[in-house]
């Protein structure tokens, strides 16, 4: 009886958009684009990825599942008829895997790894400003705050989402969302789950984390 009562109150409070509740920032609004992972949706403001802006994904080394995390997003971007630009990915992008994931390779463009950093950033800015590029993925380990701000501005004007993959987290980064993918520890899940931590998200007041099975397809 007591439990039922409190959940009723919770529901009432949640339904009221005018009410600000510090402990439940994640539930605010529904403007986001679903990540495809329910546990992650729950801890992101707007219940999903933002529509535009800059996002940082921190992994101790490349290939921790950061692309698996974004595959549902890529699929929805391609379905919208927009393009995905990969700027200097560290390895060869393998087309059969994209086809398996349901991503049309005709809407994928790769800027090669040996492009200079200046050119790569230039292309990223231009791509973010172009409405037709729905998603820009870039691998840049260290970028000054000034550059990040500029990219953020470009993403806002172009209504695009830019994702920066990096090894080290910088606390003072102006990007509205910073994620970290950690090691998979939970032995009882058969090492299948990875810990995804939302270090910072515009709207969240503290970092939240979730254990997600990133390799659903594999």
């Amino acid at each position: 009886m007591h439990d039922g009562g409190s959940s009723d109150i919770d529901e009432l409070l949640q339904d009221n958009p005018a009410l600000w509740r510090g402990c439940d920032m994640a539930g605010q609004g529904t403007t986001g684009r679903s990540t495809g992972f329910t546990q992650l949706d729950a801890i992101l403001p707007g219940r999903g990825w933002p529509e535009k802006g800059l996002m940082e994904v921190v992994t101790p080394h490349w290939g921790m599942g950061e692309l698996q995390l974004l595959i549902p997003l890529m699929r929805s971007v391609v379905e919208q008829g927009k393009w995905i630009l990969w700027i200097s990915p560290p390895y060869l992008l393998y087309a059969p895997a994209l086809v398996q994931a349901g991503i049309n390779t005709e809407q994928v463009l790769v800027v090669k790894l040996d492009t200079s950093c200046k050119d790569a950033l230039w292309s990223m800015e231009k791509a973010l400003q172009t409405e037709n590029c729905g998603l820009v993925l870039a691998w840049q380990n260290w970028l000054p705050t000034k550059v990040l701000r500029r990219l953020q501005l470009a993403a806002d004007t172009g209504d695009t989402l830019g994702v920066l993959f990096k090894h080290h987290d910088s606390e003072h980064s102006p990007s509205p969302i910073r994620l970290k993918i950690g090691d998979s520890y939970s032995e009882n899940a058969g090492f299948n789950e990875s810990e995804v931590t939302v270090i910072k998200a515009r709207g969240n007041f503290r970092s939240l984390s979730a254990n997600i099975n990133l390799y659903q397809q594999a």
Partner: protein
Amino acid sequence: MKDPDSEAQLPLPSLARESGAQVIKLPASPNTVTANRPTANKASRRTPARRIRPNKLWYALFLPQLTNLAPSQQKKYLNQLAGHMQSVSSNVSFHPQALACEVRSGLKYFGGIDTIHQKLKKLLEEQLRQWDLDDNFLYAASPTISGSLLLARSGHNALVYRKENLRSALGQLPTDVLHLDREQGRRLHNMGVRYLGDIWRLPSDGVRKRFGSKFVDQLDKALGKAPEPTCNYVPPPAFITSYDLPYELENLDRVLPIVDELLAQLCDFLRRRDLSTSHLILSLLHEKRDSTAVSIGLRQASRSQQHLMLLLETHFSQLSIPAPIIAIKIEVIKFDSFIAESNSLLKEAVPRLSRRNDSSLVQFMEQLQARLGNNHIKFVRSVAQHCPEHASAQLDYSDESNRRNSIGKVKKVSNNPRPLWLLQDPVLLHINKGRLFYRKPIAILSGPERIETHWWSGADVCRDYYVARESSGSRLWIYQEKGSVKKWYLHGIFA
């Protein structure tokens, strides 16, 4: 030049030469019966005295050596020769293995038909020799195109100035020059007709009935009795414009407004001719130095000043000039026909995004290409191949044909898991205390998937692929080589 009517060789009265002005054709009014009659007829009504004056002189040349070539080749050659003939006349007409140009209007300027002939002969012979063709050609000049062609074909190299002399000049020609088919030729021969003059002696009604209107019309045209349609040579468009700077400039930013001005000229030129361009070169000229050329290739032909300007600005941002600029030149290398975007009459409820913004995307890509260069932008395509490293292809952005080929093909990929990252060269994994190691220990999750291919090419591929997990959390795609050396390699990362 042999002249069948010597009296016509006399210098022409100035009246006749002025008659070129009569060529201005008035728009035909529907109630004028003579609307499609030759201009000579129209002129006769205004000034009867001019009726007898021929008002055109067609110089025709016949190239029998082209007969054996393919039609497309003939067309190509004739087109080039017509380009040379443009140097003496603005009115060049195409005919089978022959060209005709109007020279009356230029007689005074060039100082007679002989000068014109010498000038052309030099140009054409040189060109023919370049193509390894016989450098002889047959020529003739008369007031009608058909007449000139017939005279040229006969090999008479004749010159007829006046229309009334045409009949006697053409009458001497054998019927072979008409290039009739065998049946008609045989029938003419059986009738005892050997020369064109003989045909004119026959009753015209009967000839028309027996040989058809086309045959009679051809002869009428030759005599100037029927109008002659021409198939005019239109020179290919060319655009070169330059601007001499009043003082030397070193700063590229200050050149931009001038470039913008030149581009405006270019776009205006293109709009007027309904063309667009896909390749142009901007040259920055320096004193005592080679010019700096900026080549702009477009994937989709354009005539948008804004777009071209944007591309040039992108190029300029990376350009360093060796010396101050004294002049700017823009030259169009390739013209394309303009293809306009069609909009639907009714507003579509859900406009297809890919089409709506296609142009902005193409513009973005071109900008990218301009900055990064051609081989830095790649498309990825899956290829129907068993061998993992060949199953994905990286195509150059400019490789349009390859890209087109791959579009729309049904791609079948393996049902087995494939990684998103592939290592260019597989990394050898070492074994430590019975466990595989990459950066950390590796545990196999699933597999094996046997891939055995390319045994025919010598580079035999025989591998067992496994999906493995590194203890740090990343998924790896590893394989063990079959055969004598059973080594383990890392080939991909699922990422």
